[in-house]
């Protein structure tokens, strides 16, 4: 089910807090910019690390995970695709809980990611499955509840997570 008004950023932020996320490591993504990143930049509960490029964020999150701090890497799917080798090496080979929140820019409402007309969106889930990365799509408010347990699972098993954000998030 898709929320016609867009996703509520406050609910995603609350879910990150329930997942005990302390650091948000981010490069702006228009899908989550207004609803998630701008509010987080003003939220004293989070420490924000602004990036120049997404792959450096994978390594920063690795250092934070090893020192037992929880982090979310907030990026756009294009940045995920650009960072595939870093994710392969650091998240998958090193077996670290790199928790990615990935905006699916221009995914059509009411359409599953793998059925999108956008090639880049369409290949996201198959890539994640090939890499063995736990993933799910937040396409409506009801999907947000899956985020905190997915974060717990990532840290418990020391494995990466990709939470795909399927539509634009409103403040």
């Amino acid at each position: 089910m898709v929320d016609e008004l867009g996703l509520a950023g406050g609910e995603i932020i609350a879910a990150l807090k329930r997942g005990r996320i302390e650091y948000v490591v981010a490069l702006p993504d228009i899908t989550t910019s207004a609803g998630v990143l701008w509010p987080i930049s003003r939220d004293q509960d989070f420490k924000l690390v602004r990036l120049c490029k997404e792959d450096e964020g994978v390594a920063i999150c690795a250092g934070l995970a090893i020192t037992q701090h929880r982090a979310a890497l907030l990026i756009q799917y294009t940045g995920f695709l650009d960072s595939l080798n870093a994710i392969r090496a650091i998240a998958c080979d090193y077996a670290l809980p790199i928790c990615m929140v990935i905006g699916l820019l221009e995914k059509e409402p009411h359409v599953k990611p793998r059925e999108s007309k956008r090639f880049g969106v369409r290949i996201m889930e198959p890539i994640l499955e090939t890499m063995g990365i736990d993933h799910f799509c937040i396409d409506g408010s009801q999907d947000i509840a899956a985020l905190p347990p997915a974060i717990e699972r990532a840290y418990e098993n020391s494995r990466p997570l990709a939470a795909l954000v399927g539509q634009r998030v409103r403040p």
Partner: protein
Amino acid sequence: MIRRDEGLKEIAKHRGDAIVVAVYNSAFDLRRVSPSPLNYYSVGAMGLASSHGLGLALGLPSRKVIVLDGDGSLLMNVGSLVTIASQAPRNLYHFVGENGCYEANGSHPIPGRGRLSFAGMARAAGYLHVFEFDDLDRFAIEVPRILSLSGPVFTTLKIVPGEPSPLDYEFIHGPGTRQDFKAAIAAILAGKA
């Protein structure tokens, strides 16, 4: 020019209980010159040592983090200079071994070799302290002061290869090596180290 292993020995003399993040040939030299469970081998995704170092420095602010980067590696992640300067971790010491080539991949020259200033880039990015050395004796004198400064500190060393170290890829890529590092960090966090 400074032999890489000789320069590393000077850093090792003063590392104390610091975490050291190293790439490729520096990693092999580090293992020979200064073996420690607090050595973190940044391999598999070239260019990201400085970012691993930043994550570790933010996560463990009471502990010095030394990054032994390469010039080719840093060029792959040059934006990290800006990210690091922006976060300004006081405990991060970023060393770059500047040999002008991709030594681990056939010694092809890096772009901009001989014209590019890594010290200049670090200074422009906003590192608090920036140093450049091409002489071992002068570097040896300055290392204690460099490691006593409040970071982020950037130091570039003009290097040539030194005594060859064993190229033990099994070790630097091995899951056991990473587990040992995680255990060493966990012990620090538990107050046992």
